[in-house]
């Protein structure tokens, strides 16, 4: 029982990080119908910038939470600038191009960012200094750290904020209109270039938060972390139904739960034949099964069969 609960807690923490990153994918996809392959690298940049600042301030005597916030304050603008630049340089010129052309530039951007980070920060793993309070709480036999609580709460807060932004504000309405039909949105007076830029900027800000969370949670960051994280988050977005904000959140949480429960129980389920390193297989297997029965993801609408 306590193992189950422990795995659920771990899954929720992992899942809320996935969900934050997945939102970045899904927002861009919803508006432009494009897989922003470089989004994972934005998370990586966010983690490394935040970490660099935090390491600089770690011995300054400031309280840990303040240091982390300053780190985030440095990382968020950098990520937003990176996201803005990516859209300008790699996607905007190709808006009318064949569908796969922006995918290749996205891969190019991803390679460039990864190696740029390697040039700046080196190949080594960077440890997250132990500045954050790590009190442990016992809940029905499982342990949860204050950091984990904070991650889940902040993620929920950010997601709620984004939902409000998209559903309730003028900007959100413009975003939804652009997603629906860019040409008509433009006729209604929406500056779609500005909206698309803003979408990238907002997604990148979420990525910066997620980056800080990942590096704090695993106490480590390195130039290659974005790739696998991006992959998982993208999977989560598709699992939920790409293009839908709610889908990204649901998919993220579900994927986190699937992974940690898979890691915990896959050995027992298969009589010890498959070990916990099959957790990714398990995750992808669930994804494939979901898509076989719901080809547009869990909450996605049936894709219009366009002529």
């Amino acid at each position, binding site marked *: 029982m306590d193992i189950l609960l422990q795995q659920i807690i771990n899954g929720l923490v992992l899942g809320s990080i996935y969900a934050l990153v997945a939102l970045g994918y899904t927002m861009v996809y919803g508006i432009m119908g494009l897989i922003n392959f470089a989004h994972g690298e934005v998370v990586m940049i966010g983690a490394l910038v935040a970490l660099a600042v935090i390491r600089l301030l770690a011995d300054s005597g400031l309280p840990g939470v303040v240091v982390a916030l300053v780190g985030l304050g440095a990382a968020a603008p950098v990520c937003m600038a990176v996201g803005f630049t990516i859209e300008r340089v790699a996607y905007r010129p190709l808006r009318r191009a064949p569908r796969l052309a922006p995918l*290749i530039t996205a891969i190019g951007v991803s390679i*460039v960012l990864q190696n740029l980070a390697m040039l700046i920060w080196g190949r080594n793993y960077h440890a997250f200094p132990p500045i954050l309070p790590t009190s442990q709480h016992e809940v029905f036999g499982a342990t949860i750290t204050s950091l984990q609580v904070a991650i889940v709460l902040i993620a929920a807060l950010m997601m709620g904020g984004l939902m409000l932004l998209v559903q309730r504000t003028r900007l959100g309405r413009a975003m939804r209109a652009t997603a629906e039909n860019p040409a008509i949105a433009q006729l209604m007076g929406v500056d779609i270039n500005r909206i698309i830029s803003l979408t990238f900027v907002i997604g990148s800000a979420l990525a910066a938060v997620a980056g800080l969370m990942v590096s704090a949670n695993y106490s480590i960051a390195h130039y290659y972390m974005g790739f696998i994280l991006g992959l998982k988050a993208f999977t989560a977005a598709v699992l939920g139904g*790409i293009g839908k904000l709610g889908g990204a959140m649901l998919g993220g949480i579900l994927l986190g739960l699937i992974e940690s429960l898979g890691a915990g129980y896959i050995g027992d389920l298969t009589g010890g034949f498959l070990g916990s390193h099959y957790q990714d297989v398990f995750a992808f297997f669930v994804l494939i099964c979901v898509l076989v029965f719901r080809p547009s993801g869990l909450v996605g609408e049936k894709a219009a069969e366009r002529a």
Partner: protein
Amino acid sequence: MSFLDRLRHSRRAALGATLFLGLLLAALPFLVGNGLGNSWLRILDFALLYIMLALGLNIVVGFAGLLDLGYIAFYAVGAYLYALLASPHFGLHLPVWAIIPAGAALAGFFGILLGAPTLRLRGDYLAIVTLGFGEIVRIFLNNLNAPLNITNGPQGISGIDPIRLGGVSLARPMEFLGFTIPSLHGYYYLFLALALLIVFVTIRLEHSRIGRAWVAIREDEIAAKACGINTRNIKLLAFAMGASFGGVAGGLFAGFQAFVSPESFSLMESIMVLCMVVLGGMGHIPGVILGGILLTVLPEIFRHGAGPVQQMLFGKVLLDPEALRMLLFGLALIVVMLYRPAGLWPSPTRRREFRGDAR
């Protein structure tokens, strides 16, 4: 009239060009081997393998329009089949002419295995499932060393038999009519022959009923169905055909390298092959070949250039050459796509479509 048009219209010019190209391809290993050294000869051999892969993926992505991000799995299937059936690992040493077709068949079967559950998926949903499939295959290769040691896990399988043709091992220099042909040359000619075979098959496929059905599905699946095309079978056929080419290339890779490990079949490799197809010119065979050559050779040029050029300019190596090389490579991908969004050498129809004056 452009050079290419002249070739199309004059039989003599075409014959001359074919002869010239044939001679060039035959002499290439000697030119490269003597001029640039053996490391470039190896790169040349790899370029041929990648051309086979790119042509296989081109069937799926370029002709049938199904975005596949896990293509390298089929390469892995072919490679591991060769490794298991011709190495000391299981003590089996089957001949190459038995393994390569078996590899093609098994990879084709895996292609159907991937294709069958994904028939209803479109576009990016298909992309993520194929990606997951590729990762699943890689993870299994990585972990199937316990409880039963099948793939030897992350260490991979080494000591794989070299490819033997008619009792002659390609791993050693061969005596032929008094000439000594080095091993890398032998592999070059074998790979070239198979690459040409694959090119021939692909060209014939492209203009067959099947090829036209693939293009019809790419352009509009519903319309294709309405025209009486059995989209299910034709899509499965695309997956199987493309995969079988990958299986052949994989088997050759295992024999050539004498070593396979899961590391060679990462997602990045799938992405690389996709880049070859798209950058070269999706669905256009010469373009895809160009893409395969370019993306194999370009990183190597950067690899050989990144260190020495810095040495020359600054007197010392300031930036990590490996990172710099990939950085330049990424930039090259972006720049090429920005300036030629339809690929470097798109098919004439596609180019017209792209200019917007199709129909």
